[in-house]
């Protein structure tokens, strides 16, 4: 436990000494908040706030964490960790929790700025939103872990991260509300976790007293989203742990790549069930 906490605190400290990490961890999310505020008539409603928070989690998980892991691995830092009597799970957990804390602090900053500048309502259920953001982060960080294990270099992280990030923004219900998408894109969006991330957080931000007609809100109304994000996160974390590489030179064996498909199976299963439930 001492090793875990020391590693976590050291990683957090190092992140705040890295200018690039600060720009991507806090600068870019703030810019995305202002971009959404400007595009949608100088306001940020519950849906837009949920979208902005999802982009923050997605960016931190698909780029921030894997770039940090891969860069350290390229430098031989992980090779040095491997010499110590510390388990892989301890180090992975520490890295993921560190990134979650960075993403969470960035999300809190966005919520505060949205309130201050765009007069956005405070989330109706802050604790439920915290739980939802934690689940969203878990799902995305699992994906980030797989990216970090598949990518050999930091530039490869960018390439693979974009392959996940961009479809999710454009046709995955993150950049554009999934209800506004054409039918074919709605079918695509049910396979992508971004849609469920936006939806679960929107349901926790919505204020029931401001609704024109009563609809179920909060986590109790998001049981499928909880299932989808939980399954996607669990399968990705399992795959990421199985694919774990201490050393850049360590080759991923052919059978190990099957674990990459396990991570994708989570997405596939969620999409098939959503199609069966006619969620388009």
């Amino acid at each position, binding site marked *: 436990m001492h090793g875990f906490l020391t590693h976590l605190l050291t990683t957090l400290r190092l992140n705040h000494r890295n200018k690039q990490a600060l720009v991507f961890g806090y600068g870019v999310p703030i810019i995305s908040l202002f971009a959404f505020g400007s595009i949608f008539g100088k306001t940020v409603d519950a849906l837009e706030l949920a979208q902005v928070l999802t982009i923050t989690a997605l960016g931190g998980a698909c780029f921030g964490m894997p770039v940090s892991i891969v860069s350290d691995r390229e430098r031989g830092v992980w*090779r040095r960790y491997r010499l110590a009597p510390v388990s892989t799970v301890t180090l992975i957990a520490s890295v993921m929790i560190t990134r979650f804390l960075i993403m969470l602090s960035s999300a809190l900053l966005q919520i505060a700025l949205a309130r201050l500048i765009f007069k956005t309502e405070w989330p109706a259920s802050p604790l439920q939103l915290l739980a939802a953001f934690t689940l969203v982060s878990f799902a995305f960080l699992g994906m980030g872990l797989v990216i970090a294990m598949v990518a050999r270099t930091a530039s490869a992280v960018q390439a693979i991260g974009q392959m996940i990030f961009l479809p999710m923004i454009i046709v995955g219900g993150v950049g554009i509300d999934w209800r506004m998408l054409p039918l074919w894109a709605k079918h695509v969006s049910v396979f992508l976790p971004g849609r469920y991330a936006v939806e679960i957080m929107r349901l926790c931000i919505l204020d029931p007293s401001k609704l024109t007609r009563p609809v179920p809100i909060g986590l109790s109304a998001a049981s499928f989203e909880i299932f989808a994000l939980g399954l996607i996160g669990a399968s990705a974390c399992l795959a990421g742990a199985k694919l774990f590489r201490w050393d850049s030179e360590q080759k991923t064996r052919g059978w190990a790549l099957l674990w990459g498909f396990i991570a994708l199976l989570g997405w596939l299963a969620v999409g098939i069930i959503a199609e069966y439930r006619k969620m388009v």
Partner: protein
Amino acid sequence: MPSQVIVRDLIKSYGALQAVRGVSFEIARGEIFGMLGPNGAGKTTTLECVIGLRDPDGGSIEISGLDARRNRREVKERIGAQLQNTALQDKITPREALKLFASFYRKPADVPTLLNRFSLNEKADAYFDSLSGGQRQRLGLALALINEPEFLLLDEPTAGLDPQSRRELHDAIKAMRSDGRSVLLTTHYIEEAELLCDRIAIIDQGKIIALGTPAELISKAKALPRIVVNTVCPLNLERLRGLHGVVEAIENANGSRGSQISTRKVGETIIDLVKMLEAEKNELLDLHIKQPSLEDVFIELTGRRLRD
């Protein structure tokens, strides 16, 4: 003296390439054991198998009486290492790095004591990317000692350092032996191996081809002692070859003046040489005797220089 490390019949292949082919050696408590070999000889693979970074295909490794392959966590508590191709994050300080790694062990060393021992006090709170090569290597050694290990592996610890930093590290490595720790050292500097190691294994093509103290290895050299002589007037090589005990006489290499004489009888050759110079009224400027070195042994055994 009881053995701290026992390696038996170690085998490791990468696909069709057999990198390590049945390597066996023992390291006693308080012994510095050197491993010399040309690039690609299997040194680093052997070292990485011993430390648990690679799984060997066969053989056994025992460290402090424990089977290293079955008791990895326990063995990691007892070994320290400084490897090539390992660095730290740019913005971590030596104090933070030592505290971080100390937190991974059950019985860590005292961080301020290590900083002091490796003369890192002044740089304790400086970022890693601002440290000099020597300071980074010293930090690497301090990290290797963070768990008060019984056994240390040092993979080319002085590579790329200036002579002053190298001397400082030599003192630090000797101090490890004085503390009763066993050290497995690989190096590209043959004089460093000769200076530091109690015993040396020469490894080539995945096998140990010679093992012994530096003096034992040198005594097996086929090379003869050489007399390097420089005179006012050039010497006639044919006449030199006729001197007592001389096997070969050549001009000095590298364009420097003078001659080199390989001889089986150093004393008698020198007496003959002085007589010859007197007869020729030639004046002696410089004369010294070169005994066969570890490098000669290495070249004889592997057909290559260590840094090839």
